[in-house]
């Protein structure tokens, strides 16, 4: 921040503060929010680890097993969407509101939606097999943690959808794109941690 003040700064133009922030306000705001979110997920995970560590058997007897393989494939869809949005951001920086940027963001939106939809489909199946929030601690924590992630994914997808409509009408600011990108990175990045802890336990 020291760069803002040079020793022989011209005193002639006081009302034009030159600000060259390291990060735009939107990006910084979303990063601070992500720190809070990380602590939120860390709390859910530590609660899960404590309860599962003292349980007699984990996963408990008589509870349906989670779809490990299907979810692993689904994870790849989520990772792909993260990479596509990254490509979209690069393309937006170099080309602006180009056809290619729009296509990449739209693809990311579709991939993300597929991920959430497949998750929802699995939930319906698990519910029909008898895994509910009240059936066991296992079920409760599964729906709590994975559900929290799904809500974040849906929120982020709404953000990407807004991004896309702004991109189409040519009024998108780079800082907004960056903020949504960071949040989508968070949703994508926290998923493998949750997958390993919850599905592979």
């Amino acid at each position, binding site marked *: 921040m020291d760069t803002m003040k040079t020793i022989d700064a011209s005193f002639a133009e006081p009302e034009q503060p030159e600000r060259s922030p390291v*990060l735009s306000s939107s990006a910084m*705001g979303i990063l601070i929010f992500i720190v809070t979110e990380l*602590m939120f997920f860390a709390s859910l995970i530590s609660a899960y680890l404590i309860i599962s560590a003292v349980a007699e058997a984990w996963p408990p007897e008589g509870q349906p097993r989670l779809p490990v393989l299907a979810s692993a494939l689904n994870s790849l869809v989520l990772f792909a969407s993260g990479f596509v949005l990254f490509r979209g951001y690069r393309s937006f920086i170099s080309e602006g509101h180009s056809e290619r940027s729009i296509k990449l963001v739209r693809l990311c939106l579709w991939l993300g939606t597929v991920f959430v939809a497949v998750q929802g489909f699995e939930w319906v199946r698990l519910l029909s097999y008898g895994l509910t929030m009240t059936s066991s*601690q296992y079920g409760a924590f599964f729906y709590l943690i994975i559900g*929290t992630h799904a809500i974040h994914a849906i929120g982020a997808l709404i953000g990407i959808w807004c991004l896309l409509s702004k991109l189409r009408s040519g009024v998108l600011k780079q800082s907004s794109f960056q903020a949504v990108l960071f949040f989508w990175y968070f949703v994508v990045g926290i998923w493998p941690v949750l997958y390993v802890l919850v599905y592979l336990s």
Partner: protein
Amino acid sequence: MAEVTHVDGAHDAHHEHHKPSFWSKYVFSTDHKMIALQYMFTGMAMALIGGYFAYVFRMQLAFPGASIPFFGTLSPAAYNSLVTNHGTIMIFWVAMPVLIAAMGNFLIPLMIGCDDMVFPRVNRLSYQIFLLSAIILIISFFVPGGGFGGAWTAYPPLSAKAEFNATPFGAPMWLIAVTLEIVAFLLGGINFITTVMNARAKGMRMYDIPIIVWMIVIASILFMCSVGPLIAGAVMLLFDQTLGTGFFDGTAGGDPVLWQHLFWFFGHPEVYVVLLPAMGIVGEITCTFARKKLFAYKLILYSTIGLGILSFFVWAHHQFISGVDPRAAYLFTTTTLLISIPVAIVLFAYIATLYGGSIRFTTAMLFALAFTGEFLLGGVTGIWLGSSGVDVYLHDTYFVLAHFHYTFVPIAIIATFAAVYYWYPKMFGRKMNETWGKIHFWGTIVSFNGIFIPLFILGAGGQHRRIYNFQHYPDLAGADMQDMRVFATLSLIVMLAFQVIFIVNFFVSLKRGEKVGNNPWKANTLEWVATSPAPHGNFGATMPEVYRGPYEFSVEGREEDYWPQNEKPSES
């Protein structure tokens, strides 16, 4: 941001043509000063409710079973509800909105010399969510079963099942209100940190930022990093209450102590979240009225950062009797005793600032000095409670209660009064009456000590918290103990009565207070550059530029004993 300034300037010109309606000016405003006032007035209104609750349950303790004036007889369930909501209101709906939200919103843009927060609409949303949470809490007092009565810490299993707490609607509403309130401050905190990082006036370097702005930013960072566990715990507890899950139910494989960890991981940093703005207020005021440079500015800043980091490693000192391993308790005793060092450094730096200064005993200064003294008492008694061995005896007694009131009353009441008396001219363009201010000060301070010194003695004598009627316990029913309870209650009534003076002074001064210029206290920081009261956009067409630190008082070779941050250095 330069563009934003111009846009706001255009807004101003626009506003001159047709005045903003009452609603857009006072209710749906995005102006940081108006949002600050909204937070402040809501906080003050909630403080009246919290004070009234304290009056009712203190009357019950002093005169058990008697009909209480302005209330009637108090049932045990209502007693629990009042105690719980007194604590909740005073921390979440008084200390937080007034110290962090009102002071942060009002002071940050003015002190760092920008026109508004970087996210003004997020700021407005923050207040609206906060107001909603307050309304939900107030409604919860009137639902069937009454308000939640499981103490403000809401330990399960009492809080988790309606069959235990007997408040099927009050408990979830309490939880939802607290969570919404937390979300409101989340939005506010993001705004504060980002604004200070990205929107400072030209020339304002890291060490030119006033200490209160630093303290509010550090407090916001603490809040951001600690609030996740509370929200997680609240969601889980809400599921336990409404869906019948068993996260905190030992019989269903859950763990009730888990809630205590999640709650106190937030709960202890939270103490510093409200303490830091209060210490910042006191620092600013001490400096201005001692007419001296703040002693050891950088040391204070570094101590505060150290304090913030340490505050994440002390939470289990609230749980020494919850079955925490004695070895872990030893660890948390050590960190708890360590954290008193940075707090002491800051307080000593304030005392050193006074040394050799030419002190002016305005009302604001009296409150600031009282904070330093009274908070010291709260801090020192904390050393006993932080030691796990002593805490086993004192846990859940009135000693603990008196200890945290000796920290929280200086924070939420005394420092807030100091801030109101000090910044009132900037908020409304007039001064509050100093004579009545001093009467209010002495009445408040003397009666405050009258309430809590007897409670220290009672607590050391073994008086347990959360008891509805001490006459049922022969060990606690002695006449000498009861006399002290009556004395504490009478002191509380005196303290509440003196607040009437403040309220009258506040509202009369709005119309009749002495009109003052931009800088009535001859202070250096940028908020005193703006006109009083500051207009929308704060500084008009010319944004201030910063040339020096915020505390250049009594500099040798200058005619004036102060040197505003924005004054250009002379050419010679």
